[in-house]
C-alpha cells in the first residue's frame, strides 16, 4: 500500500518474490473456492455494495461474479464507448472485463493482464460463457505486455496496491495508453506509512 520501498534493495527482492507467491495463492483461492472466508468481502455481496448494476451480475457467468474480489467500481467513471480498446489490469476471474466488453461492443476489444496464467484462462472462459471475448495475457503490472499507445482506456480494481513498484506501474499505464486516453481505477490507499511488520507480512500485504 505504500508508495515508497522501505527495505534495502537486497532485502526487497526476496520479499517481493514471496509476496508475489502469496498474491497468486490468495486470488486463485478466491477463484477456486469463492465460498471461503477471506479478509475482504467478495463475490456478489461486494459487487452490489460497490454499485454494480444488478442486471450485469445476473447476466455474467455466476463463477465470474462469485470470484469478484474488487474494492470498488471502476465502471462508474470509465465512460466506455463502443469501439474502444480497454486494458483490465489484474483481470482476475474476469467480471470487470466482461462488463467492459459489453460496453465497448463487438467493434471494441478488452485485453486482460494478470500475473496468474490460470486466472487468465478462467477469465477468458468466463467471458466466452457470458457471450463476449476478452484476451488475457500473463504478465506483471510493472512490465505490461502491450505495445506503446495501444489502448484507449485502462480499468483496474484493487490490484496496484499489491505492487512494491507503484511508480513503475503508473509509468507503464501512461505508456500503453493512447494520447488522450484515460484511466478509471479503484484501489486501496493508506493515510499513514505502513509499519515494517505489515510490509514484511506477505499475507497482510496480499490482502
Amino acid at each position, binding site marked *: 500500500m505504500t508508495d515508497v520501498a522501505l527495505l534495502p534493495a537486497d532485502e526487497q527482492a526476496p520479499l517481493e518474490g514471496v509476496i508475489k507467491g502469496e498474491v497468486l495463492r490468495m486470488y486463485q483461492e478466491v477463484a477456486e473456492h469463492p465460498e471461503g472466508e477471506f479478509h475482504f468481502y467478495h463475490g456478489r455481496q461486494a459487487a452490489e455494495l*460497490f454499485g454494480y448494476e444488478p442486471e450485469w451480475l445476473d447476466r455474467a457467468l455466476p463463477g465470474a461474479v462469485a470470484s469478484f474480489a474488487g*474494492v470498488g467500481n471502476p465502471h462508474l467513471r470509465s465512460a466506455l464507448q463502443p469501439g474502444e480498446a480497454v486494458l483490465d489490469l489484474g483481470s482476475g476471474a474476469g467480471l470487470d472485463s466482461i462488463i467492459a466488453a459489453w460496453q465497448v461492443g463487438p467493434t471494441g476489444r478488452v485485453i486482460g493482464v494478470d500475473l496468474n496464467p490460470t486466472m487468465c484462462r478462467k477469465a477468458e472462459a468466463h467471458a466466452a460463457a457470458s457471450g463476449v471475448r476478452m484476451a488475457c495475457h500473463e504478465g506483471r503490472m510493472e512490465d505490461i505486455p502491450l505495445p506503446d499507445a495501444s489502448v484507449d482506456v485502462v480499468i483496474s480494481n484493487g490490484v496496484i496496491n499489491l505492487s512494491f513498484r*507503484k511508480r513503475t506501474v*503508473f509509468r507503464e499505464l501512461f505508456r500503453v495508453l493512447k494520447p488522450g486516453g484515460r484511466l*478509471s481505477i479503484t484501489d486501496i490507499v*493508506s493515510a499513514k506509512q505502513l509499519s515494517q511488520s505489515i510490509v514484511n507480512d506477505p499475507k*497482510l500485504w496480499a490482502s
Partner: protein
Amino acid sequence: MFVLLEDAGFQRVRSTVVPGFAFRKASTRDAAEAYGVKAVLFTAQKPAT
C-alpha cells in the same frame, strides 16, 4: 497514488472515496482504520499531444 499519477504525466487526476468499503475480518478492519486505509476511485487522462 494521486501524486504518482501526476508524476507519471497524467492530467485531470481526480479521486473520490469508495463508500462502503471495509475489510470483513474485525482484526484487519481495526488495523486498516488505524492506518487510515480507504478504497479510492481514481480517474485521469493522458495528454492528447
